[in-house]
């Protein structure tokens, strides 16, 4: 067992609500791990806990053998965890290129003064970042939008750009928050292929929150189902989908009717 990421009994309370209630899971290196559940189950909250936007009330987060439970949010990208957002949080008034270059921020080591004077060291670093960004642009087929403002891009492309920006940080672990939300069937299929490529070609471990069960079964190695902040089931996509508790959470009261 080589667990890249581990959550041990994490909980978070907002006032009286336990949004996440002692959830534990392990994600192994190189797998695609999906989190499913009805609205308000606490899936995105788990992402916000991992990327340290929220503080955990209880429990421990381990990444690559390191305890990140209390690491500041801005250090997370540097450790190798990148994420996307459910409703797209791109830098709207910047070009695609600038957005991807911001993804390189955690790798920039050039001092302030050489940035202000644009010294050769900064010039070299900028060109290196640019080369790395170009690799991502090529990987995701974004060439034609390079200098377009994000504000002028259609929704589907923005989703891909956000994925690209996360890839630019060269992550070990990628958190995808509903990669298919707002996409049509065709775009969702494309997104599925990219997620598979990210795993196979780039060797990046993925944790994904997703509602589209077709996409989940297509790409996931393992699935965890949540409801009201608690784990309902864990296992292969098929196991979880047929798990009686999961069925009840989604469709409602089946076993009660039977009883």
């Amino acid at each position, binding site marked *: 067992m080589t667990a890249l990421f581990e959550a041990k009994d994490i909980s978070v309370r907002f006032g009286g609500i336990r949004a996440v209630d002692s959830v534990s899971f392990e994600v192994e290196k190189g797998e695609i791990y999906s989190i499913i559940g009805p609205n308000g189950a606490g899936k995105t909250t788990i992402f916000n806990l991992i990327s340290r936007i929220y503080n955990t009330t209880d429990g421990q987060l381990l990444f690559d053998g390191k305890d990140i439970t209390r690491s500041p949010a801005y250090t997370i990208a540097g450790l190798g965890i990148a994420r996307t957002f459910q409703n797209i949080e791109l830098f709207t008034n910047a070009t695609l290129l600038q957005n991807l270059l911001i993804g390189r921020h955690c790798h920039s080591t050039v001092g*302030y003064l050489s940035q202000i004077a644009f010294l050769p060291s900064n010039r070299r670093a900028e060109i290196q970042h640019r080369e790395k960004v170009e690799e991502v642009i090529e990987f995701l087929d974004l060439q034609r939008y390079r200098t377009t403002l994000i504000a002028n891009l259609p929704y589907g492309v923005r989703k891909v750009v956000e994925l690209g920006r996360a890839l630019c940080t060269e992550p070990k672990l990628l958190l995808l928050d509903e990669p298919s939300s707002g996409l049509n069937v065709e775009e969702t299929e494309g997104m599925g292929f990219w997620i598979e490529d990210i795993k196979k070609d780039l060797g990046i471990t993925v944790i994904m929150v997703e509602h589209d069960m077709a996409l989940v079964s297509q790409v996931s190695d393992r699935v965890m189902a949540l409801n009201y902040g608690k784990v309902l089931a864990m296992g292969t996509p098929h196991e979880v989908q047929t798990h009686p508790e999961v069925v009840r959470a989604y469709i409602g009261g089946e076993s009660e009717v039977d009883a």
Partner: protein
Amino acid sequence: MRYLFRTNYKQDIRAWRHSGDVFWYGLLIATIMIIPFVLGEFYVGEMGGVFIFAIAGVGLMLLVGYTGLISLGHAAFLGIGAYVNSVLLSHGIPFVITLPVAGIFTAICGAAIGRPTLRMSGLYLAIATLSFGSIVGTVFQKWTAVTGGFDGFAVPTPYVFGVSVEGATGVYYTSFAVLLFVLWMSINLLRSPIGRAMVAIRDSEVSAQSMGIHLAKYKTLVFAVSAGITGLAGALFAHYVRFLAPDAFDVLLSVQFVTIVFVGGLGSLRGAILGAIFVRLLPQAIAIVRDDLPFGIGRLPGLEPSLFGLILVLVILFQPGGINGLWLKTKLWFQAFPFKRQTSGRRQKSYARSERLR
């Protein structure tokens, strides 16, 4: 119309886009250099004022236009720069030292203000900076031992390597040199990681954080840089007015700076300069037509501030891109002629973003 073919990564990080830029801006700089030989003292003096306001405008543009933080206290930074420079000069320290010291000292003040106000944004930040401005204004009035209070402070004549730089021409060339330096610095910043971090903070703080940007560090840094540049403008402003009175650095001046940034066009260095030209020309235009206005409007007190306010509101409502946006639209019209459409200048509607994560 010019098509840009990118064949080299170096092209993307150059300070200019293409050779046309180099030519036209070179021509502009050359013209500015010979203007004092052609025009009279009054015009040279007024243009010096425009340069000084353009420097402050660039400083505020970095903060408001690129980082999305508002400040209604920048007149205080201008004042700090002006007094530091003048007081040091009166102690016999040469101008080549007092100018950078004024900038650096004001930058430190900016960092000191930026640090505690970081958690605020929007209206709250505006109020905090506004009160900072009035506190500093009071200090200028009451600390008579240093500033002379309402008696004022006569600014000593500066010397650069033994040459006096007084008079309209001296201020003109010095301000222009500082403006070029500040622009060079800002362009460098904006094409470096710091500049991208600024844009990231402006557009989405939560994802800036997730990309590894330390919000507190960068906001403080930008506040310091912005204040420092305004401090440089202040040092020059002291020589422009030659006599410092504490009530010159009041809220109205801060509002003028904000007007520069909004009327010029948010998120554009060119906009800061266009805005400065506008803000300096408006009082002159009012002065010219003052006597010809009907019903004695021209003699009403407070005509100028109310016009500034009115224009600010109108620009925000009807021309959010400011003068720079207008310029870009005009350019597009000519480039696309005769194929300009109603929708050409319009942006796609923005999609809902999560308000939960701020």
